[in-house]
């Protein structure tokens, strides 16, 4: 029975405990190679000095070990502070609007019949099938002064306000308004999907219990649905806020050049100014700004998990 023997040998090899380590290690190796290592390089670069060489930076020279001048410049030149502020304010407004629009949609998705639910979920995901760039260009067309969209808005505006406020067209392009509008449009699915996943798991008998104890439907929402959906709100909020604050394409295409967002600053420093150390310093600072909310989130999540364990 040679065949059976090799079979068991293969099985022994296949079932070896060591494989579990391989399985666990693979994503870690991936992360180290393609996230941690580049990140370390970027951090290192942020302490280098700009030189007219290729690559355009070097260590040593005037600042033998660490050149902290770039970090100092972040605070000296108010271009950076303003760009960070614009990014965070824009991303914050976009996140809030996504929540405002996405929450009712996610809640609605949980309340329709399963057949409708699949169709509507599909519609939420459908925009991803078209190029993101194409969709931003479509918005450029819509917001232009001669578009039907702009004309529609202008007509409604003129109809609503006194005549001396009347406008020929509404200037939307190259404003922060355009940036927020397109970001809300682009990131809405990232708010809806985690919220839907959270709301869908909520036990509807809790709503009935609340109603049974005297709460009207809106009260039920405030007392039961809203507090229990906080994890979904946080997850969706982070998924929108983090990419929105680092957004490059939207502010470049529809935003105002006088109010740049930080993503555009990083891109300009790297490409146009060829100041790689400065670009790296801006990137590291942005990452730190974004890591703080994530750490807060995991901290609170961990706490509530601990509490649950204590009870068990």
């Amino acid at each position, binding site marked *: 029975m040679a065949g059976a023997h090799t079979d068991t040998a293969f099985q022994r090899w296949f079932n070896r405990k060591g494989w579990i380590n391989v399985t666990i290690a693979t994503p870690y190796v991936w992360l180290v190679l393609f996230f941690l290592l580049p990140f370390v390089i970027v951090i290192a670069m942020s302490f280098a000095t700009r030189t007219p060489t290729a690559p355009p930076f070097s260590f040593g020279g005037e600042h033998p070990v660490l050149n902290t001048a770039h970090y100092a410049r972040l605070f000296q030149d108010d271009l950076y502070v303003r760009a960070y502020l614009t990014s965070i304010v824009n991303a914050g407004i976009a996140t809030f609007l996504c929540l405002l629009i996405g929450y009712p949609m996610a809640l609605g998705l949980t309340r329709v019949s399963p057949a409708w639910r699949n169709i509507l979920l599909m519609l939420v995901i459908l925009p991803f099938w078209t190029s993101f760039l194409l969709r931003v260009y479509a918005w450029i067309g819509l917001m232009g002064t001669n578009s039907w969209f702009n004309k529609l808005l202008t007509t409604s505006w003129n109809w609503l306000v006194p005549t001396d406020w009347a406008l020929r067209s509404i200037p939307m392009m190259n404003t922060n308004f355009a940036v927020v509008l397109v970001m809300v449009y682009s990131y809405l699915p990232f708010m809806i999907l985690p919220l839907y996943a959270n709301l869908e798991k909520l*036990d509807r*008998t*809790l709503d*009935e*219990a*609340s*109603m*049974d*104890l*005297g*709460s*009207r439907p809106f009260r039920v929402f405030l*007392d*039961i649905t809203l*507090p*229990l959906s906080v994890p979904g709100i946080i997850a969706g909020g982070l998924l929108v806020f983090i990419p929105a604050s680092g957004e490059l394409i939207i502010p470049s295409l529809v935003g105002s050049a006088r109010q740049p967002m930080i993503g555009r600053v990083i891109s300009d420093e790297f490409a146009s100014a060829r100041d790689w150390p400065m670009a790296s310093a801006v990137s590291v600072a942005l990452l730190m700004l974004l890591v703080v909310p994530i750490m807060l989130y995991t901290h609170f999540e961990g706490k509530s998990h601990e*509490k*649950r364990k*204590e*009870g*068990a």
Partner: protein
Amino acid sequence: MPEPARSADQRAATTVAAFPGAQVPQTAVKEPPFIRIDHVTKRFGTFTAVSDVTLEIQKGEIFSLLGGSGCGKTTLLRVLAGFEAPTEGRVFIDGQDMTDLPPYERPVNMMFQSYALFPHMTVEKNVAYGLKHEDMTPAQRAERVREMLDLVQLTEFGHRKPHQISGGQRQRVALARALAKQPKLLLLDEPLAALDKKLREHTQFELMEIQEKTGTTFIVVTHDQEEAMTLSSRLAVMDKGRIMQIGTATDVYEYPNSRFVAGFIGSINFFEAKVRATGGETVEVEVPDLGGIVTARAIPGLAPGQPITLAVRPEKIHLSRMRHDLPNTFPGTVQSLAYFGKDSLYRIALPSGHVMLVNSVNARRTGEHERVADWEDAVFLSFDPAAAILLKD
């Protein structure tokens, strides 16, 4: 079986302060019913969940709706709570028409099968939840919450979250929360189903005690016949959206009105029979499967030649090795027996091939060789005419 009606004095003495209106169930006294379900029908599309149900329930009763899954008992409960609007018919509580009121305006509270405790609130907050909308001072509210937690013996657990207490404690929090608003009617959906057997028996009596203290009218939905029989003053057996029989546990067990009710509650032997002669207190029916004639207590409206079902409960059949001169005695052979300790269940094969269940209490302490009958033994079984139930459908 618990005695449903207790003395008024005893009840008044145990009434807690939170329930000043606690009263005695007055099943004996004829007064307008406290709860009236009037020709209620509930259809979902083409499916009829509840079909023309009419029920009257007195104040202070524990009334059970008993039936298998899908019999409409839970739908009927949800109609009472206001979660489902009846397609036809009306619901009255304490003389008021409730049919068009939403759940949050009904003097009715429900204890959910899953308990539906709010996971993000402490036990105290859960119990206090319904009081938010009541016209009370914060002190009164706190007092009521304390009283409710005392009632269910959870005073110490007010600050815990639902996931930090046991299943039995959760059940009691659900009960306290549902009683906190002093509802006129408390609905309990399978209140004991999620508990293990030992806890269930204990909680059953606790539930009855709390009902007695508060005097609240209870409607309990259950699929467990034992639970329904011990818990309730009266019960309704439901099948396919219809009420098959309403009565006390004794009524329903000893005097079932249909094959369904007889078969649903307890075990029973059915035989096809034909009426032979009527008249007087008893009636004779021909039972081919038993191979003879059975004398049974008469029921009204029988005519000779009419086909009828004969039903006999296994514990009402007497088993012996010798033929006694008793009415309704038939021969058979022990096909198998199961010894349960306090009693044994025999399967007796009749000459016709029909197998009959006989339950016999092991009143005497006997060894294996001295019991009433053994495998393959030829035996005689007999039952009293009063034990023979005649069913028209």
